């Protein structure tokens, strides 16, 4: 890679106004990316394997510019559908390789699970997120459905270092054979006694309620807790931990913002001149109008999507708060227009 790097850095005098990446990627599509704001990281799908509950694991080979990741972090994945780029975020489920496990629900996930053959070149954003392992006190993983994915990333990372530490893992899924990574989790449970897997099969036993927590995990208050799953679970857990005064021991991973309610209005995108009548988030409105919107986690955490507001006001869809003065940097992924507004993008 050293020689390639030099070529790419020095070679632009020969390729201007294009980049050496643009020519190198004709030889190998992975030899382009991460350089300059407009050359995106690429990854090739190396393998696709089916998992439980209509999900699939994709093994990705990232191209030049990939800086690695920590188990538990997420990655933005760009997929082209009908000629149009769509972005979603997925937890990385392997410590050394770039693998994502996707449940085939929704436009993008469905495309990844069912219509993404080996060899497809996807786009990536750098890994991000602080939903990562911190050693110290005993741990509790509270996961449901495909929310198991970041926990799996952490468990696999820990297993590579040695026997698993004291972790109680309370996981909900519809039924036993609907548990994504079920066999692997059960094997870890059998192999490393400090790791205790408690399965909740909700089709038979109903949804987990916080009142059951004391019985299922008596020492939950002592544990550093990581929670990932549907919005209802996240909300219940957050409330429960907050009322117990333990919210600093809780790590929450969301894949969509918790929506209270958004506004609507006409959004103008000053640099391209595009306009869109929107009752969605500003990010979605811009993307639909063909504007190059910066984006990251798409759930209000990473601030990778901020754009200066030129005029008007926006509403935070998570809280319903209306705010904004000209020049404010707004998070487009969790803001909707509150009446007409203009963005400097």
């Amino acid at each position, binding site marked *: 890679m050293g020689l390639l790097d030099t070529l790419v850095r020095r070679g632009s005098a020969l390729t201007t106004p294009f980049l050496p990446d643009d020519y190198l990627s004709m030889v190998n599509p992975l030899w382009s990316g991460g350089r300059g704001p407009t050359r995106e990281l690429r990854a090739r799908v190396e393998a696709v394997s089916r998992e439980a509950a209509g999900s699939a694991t994709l093994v990705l080979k990232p191209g030049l510019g990939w800086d690695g990741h920590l188990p538990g972090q997420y990655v933005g994945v760009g997929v082209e559908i009908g000629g*149009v780029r769509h972005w979603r975020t997925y937890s990385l489920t392997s410590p050394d390789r770039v693998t994502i496990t996707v449940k085939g629900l929704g436009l993008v996930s469905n495309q990844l699970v069912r219509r993404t053959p080996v060899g497809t070149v996807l786009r990536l954003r750098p890994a991000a997120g602080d939903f990562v392992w911190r050693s110290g006190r005993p741990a509790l993983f509270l996961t449901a459905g495909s929310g198991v994915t970041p926990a799996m990333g952490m468990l696999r990372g820990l297993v590579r270092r040695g026997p698993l530490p004291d972790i109680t893992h309370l996981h909900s899924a519809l039924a036993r054979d609907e548990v994504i990574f079920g066999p692997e989790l059960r094997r870890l449970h059998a192999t490393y006694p400090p790791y205790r897997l408690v399965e909740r099969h909700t089709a038979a036993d109903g949804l987990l309620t916080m009142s059951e927590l004391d019985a299922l995990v008596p020492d939950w208050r002592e544990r550093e807790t990581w929670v990932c799953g549907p919005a209802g679970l996240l909300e219940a857990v957050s409330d429960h931990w907050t009322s117990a005064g333990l919210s600093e021991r809780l790590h929450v991973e969301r894949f969509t913002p918790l929506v209270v309610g958004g506004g609507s209005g006409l959004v103008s995108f000053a640099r391209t001149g595009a306009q869109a009548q929107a009752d969605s988030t500003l990010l979605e409105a811009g993307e639909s109008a063909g504007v190059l919107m910066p984006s990251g986690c798409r759930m209000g955490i990473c601030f990778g999507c901020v754009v200066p507001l030129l005029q008007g006001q926006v509403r935070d869809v998570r809280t319903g708060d209306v705010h904004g003065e000209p020049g404010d940097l707004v998070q487009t992924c969790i803001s909707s227009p509150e009446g007409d507004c203009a963005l400097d993008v």
Partner: protein
Amino acid sequence: MTSAAPAHPSLAHLSDADIEQIGVELDALRDEVLASRGEADAAYIRKVIKTHRQLESGARATLLVSLFPPAWLAGTAMLATAKVLENMELGHNILHGQWDWMRDPEVHSTTWDWDHATPAEDWKHSHNYLHHTYTNIIGKDRDLGYSVLRLSEDQEWKPYHLAQLGINAGLSLFFEYGVALYDIELEKVLHREMSVRAAAGRLGKLWKKVRPQLVKDYVMWPLLSGPSAVTTLGANLTANLARNVWTHTVIFCGHFPDGVAQFSEEQTENETRGGWYVRQLLGSANLEGSELFHVMTGRLSYQIEHHLFPDLPSNRYGEISPRVQEICERYGLPYTTGPLAKQYLTVLRRIARLSLPSGPSDVPVPVRRTAKKAA
């Protein structure tokens, strides 16, 4: 404010309602294409991008041994072809935002840069906005042709116009620099509408855009060619000149051949959406040729369709052309088209004719104005 538009030979038979109906039909045609954009279009533009890069790589590699005449010839031809593709089917069309809907930052009007003297940002203003909005309005369309050359009877004759056939030939060779310098609007300094400092700033920006391209073509690649340095330099110069002549020829055939109408500012004062469409129809001319020819003109051979719908993907102009012609026929509007040689000849004839003093045209060529709102 209702305005009885001056009679136009092509528009006299149409009512205001007809003009608006043409607008409605063209809007529907546009919506139809917008709704059907998809995978095949994305694959098309990626294929052109790939072809350009392959041609350019092949050309540069071949020219490393350009001392060998067949290599010079093949390399120069490939490089000229690559540069034409890059300026026309890629640069011009991508900068129009024709491919923004893909949301791919590598094929987007806000990030694309091109092998042309005009910085992409400035081009989007002078071309996408000024030229496409004020097409063929004498005095407002900042198309280069209208200020260096006399292309309309309504332009005042000056003695230097006597030499305009020669000026046109020179302009054709150095077209990209002509366009770029013209966009700086240096004449505004003379008229004290722009400070010398501002002009210097704009020249500096132009130099910043031009220099790396000059270094690439006339320093780096010749140096890399070792013993073939001189022949490679010659090849790169030839390719650039050939690209300039080609783009100039195609572009001049878009608005200046016989049969294309020009307008005055007053004539378009109260123009409606339908009136704008009709002006684009009357003010543009197509070229006939093979699919390869269309690609090499960046589909400016479908100048009429391009001017009606500047931001539709260029690969779709061909398929809507019969529909536009059908609308023209139905409403009795001209649809100017012809082969390149014939069209360019009429352009040259016009340049020659107007190099001599002559009064304003006898027949005014207005676009019909339609009422906007009662004032």
